[in-house]
């Protein structure tokens, strides 16, 4: 079975632009979470979606938004990009929406903001 897939793998944008990152969870997984990992640090939680509903939100500005589609894939949108948004954006899927469960991470999208 395929793991979590993310697209694109790399992206270069300039300040003020908008970006959309995409994630397809493992087949059968209904929960998708997004994390931001700045170089040299641990991943920081951005959002969790389960059954198309937002179940959790981290401490990120409103420029960050996300949604989950009926097929459980997800998009992360970031508006008005800042230099500090440069990071690896990780998507993780899980079979359940609640409770302690192993998170399966995708390879990430490396975003560079110039």
């Amino acid at each position, binding site marked *: 079975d395929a793991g979590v897939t993310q697209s694109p793998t790399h992206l270069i944008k300039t300040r003020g632009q908008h970006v959309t990152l995409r994630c397809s969870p493992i087949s059968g997984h209904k*929960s998708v*979470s997004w*994390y931001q990992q700045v170089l040299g*640090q*641990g*991943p*920081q*939680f951005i959002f*969790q979606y*389960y059954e198309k509903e937002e*179940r*959790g939100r*981290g401490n990120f500005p409103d420029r960050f938004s996300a949604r989950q589609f009926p097929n459980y894939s997800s998009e992360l949108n970031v508006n008005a990009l800042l230099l500090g948004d440069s990071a690896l954006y*990780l998507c*993780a899927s*899980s079979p359940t*929406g*609640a*409770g*302690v*469960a*192993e*998170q*399966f*991470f*995708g*390879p*990430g999208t490396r975003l560079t903001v110039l």
Partner: protein
Amino acid sequence: GQQVMQIPQYQHVQEGEDFTTYCNSSTTLSNIQWYKQRPGGHPVFLIQLVKSGEVKKQKRLTFQFGEAKKNSSLHITATQTTDVGTYFCAPFQGAQKLVFGQGTRLTINP
């Protein structure tokens, strides 16, 4: 919210030496997970601990959860070059929010 501190931040060992990383919290944790991230890779789940004093082993890796559930450790016996990477501890907070520590980066001299 829950925050965890990991020590050391960096560790360099000779191949064959043992390695230990510690994860400490000021608050009681209901659970903790450990992940490994290879250079240029993504976090990969290693183990989950939920019981006070729990010890779990995976081949050369030993994971412990403290009696007070405020700390955890990962010990690797006789490191191999394949062990290179950053090891993160991460408790769950709320729904499915992982709160990652800053990680311990392990490098190995062959």
